[in-house]
């Protein structure tokens, strides 16, 4: 019955009912997905992916185009800004750890950020030739809210960014620890920092389960890398763009 009701409201697009129903549907689906993940504790049972796997077929089936969906769920998207501000709290919590060797951490992570942005942007430009996609892919190692904010600022494609971030997160989180052991990197600080820098929150969660103290380093790396990226990318992308135009 809910589906029927949603169906009817979608025909008269852009009215209040469809705004409410699409937002409500998004909220409900996400809550259900988050509940499933909490219940089974599978990290790959990602609430965002699950929600989208249900939402996209629903939108296609009901012939709701993305523009009307985006308009209807505008307020959910608008909440991204205050949510990003809230990340200032974990940043504040990490300041104590960062302060001990902030110069080393900042130079190491800034170099990492420059390398990964340059590589991702150049590879994408060479293979796909689409600047907006290249911008999205070069933000793949940043935590999602900051990644989306930066993509929009640089006129990248903010629908590609969350998936790129997801792939970087899962590949590094699942295969990263064994790869690091393989190349003989065993210290907690090196493992934590590299997983946090490359695979952000997803890496950090998985690493914390295996080893809490390495996980703590990865939280430092993920928040610091994100802030550094915000400062570096607005200068670096226009510079890289010169080589491809």
């Amino acid at each position, binding site marked *: 019955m809910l589906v029927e009701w949603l169906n009817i409201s979608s025909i008269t697009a852009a009215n209040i009912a469809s705004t409410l129903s699409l937002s409500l549907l998004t909220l409900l689906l996400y809550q259900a997905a988050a509940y499933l993940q909490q219940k089974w504790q599978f990290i790959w049972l990602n609430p965002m992916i699950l929600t989208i796997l249900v939402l996209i077929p629903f939108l296609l089936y009901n012939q709701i185009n993305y523009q009307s969906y985006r308009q209807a769920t505008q307020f959910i998207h608008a909440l991204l800004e205050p949510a990003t501000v809230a990340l200032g709290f974990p940043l504040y919590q990490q300041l104590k750890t960062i302060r001990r060797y902030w110069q080393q951490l900042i130079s190491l992570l800034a170099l990492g950020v420059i390398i990964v942005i340059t590589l991702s942007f150049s590879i994408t430009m060479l293979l796909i030739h689409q600047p907006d996609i290249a911008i999205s892919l070069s933000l793949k190692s940043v935590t999602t809210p900051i990644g989306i904010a930066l993509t929009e600022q640089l006129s990248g494609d903010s629908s590609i960014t969350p998936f790129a971030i997801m792939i970087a997160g899962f590949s590094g989180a699942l295969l990263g620890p064994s790869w690091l052991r393989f190349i003989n*990197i065993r210290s907690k600080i090196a493992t934590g920092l590299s997983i946090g820098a490359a695979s952000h929150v997803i890496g950090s969660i998985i690493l914390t389960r295996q080893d809490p103290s390495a996980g703590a380093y990865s939280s430092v790396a993920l928040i610091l890398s994100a802030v550094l990226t915000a400062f570096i990318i607005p200068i670096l992308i226009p510079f890289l763009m010169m080589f491809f135009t």
Partner: protein
Amino acid sequence: MKNVLYTALAIAFCLGLGKLVNHFIAGLPASLYGMIFYCLLLQLGWLSPNKVAHANQWIIKHMGICFIPAAVGVINHYELIKHHGFTIVISIVFTTFILLTFVGMVAERYLATSNDKSIEGSN
């Protein structure tokens, strides 16, 4: 409930400040300026970390929902995924491992030893 309101007002204030700064200096997105202000005010003790801790944790736990409207936009990228999906995934995984290797090796070489020493020293 009082703390929830306190957190909401604190975040709104920082975001407002961020928007103001972003209006004059376009370097960072408004929300990132806001984040830095929020962190700064907590560090300076102008905002109470204890009061915001709980509500803030709730926000971060549930922020994933805010990504959905943007991510659904992938619906318009059928062609891109069909032609370049594989290339995109491979290049993401490749650059992720480059970054892992770089940060891991440098940290192992320069930070792990000094860190180990400091642990020995403190014992």
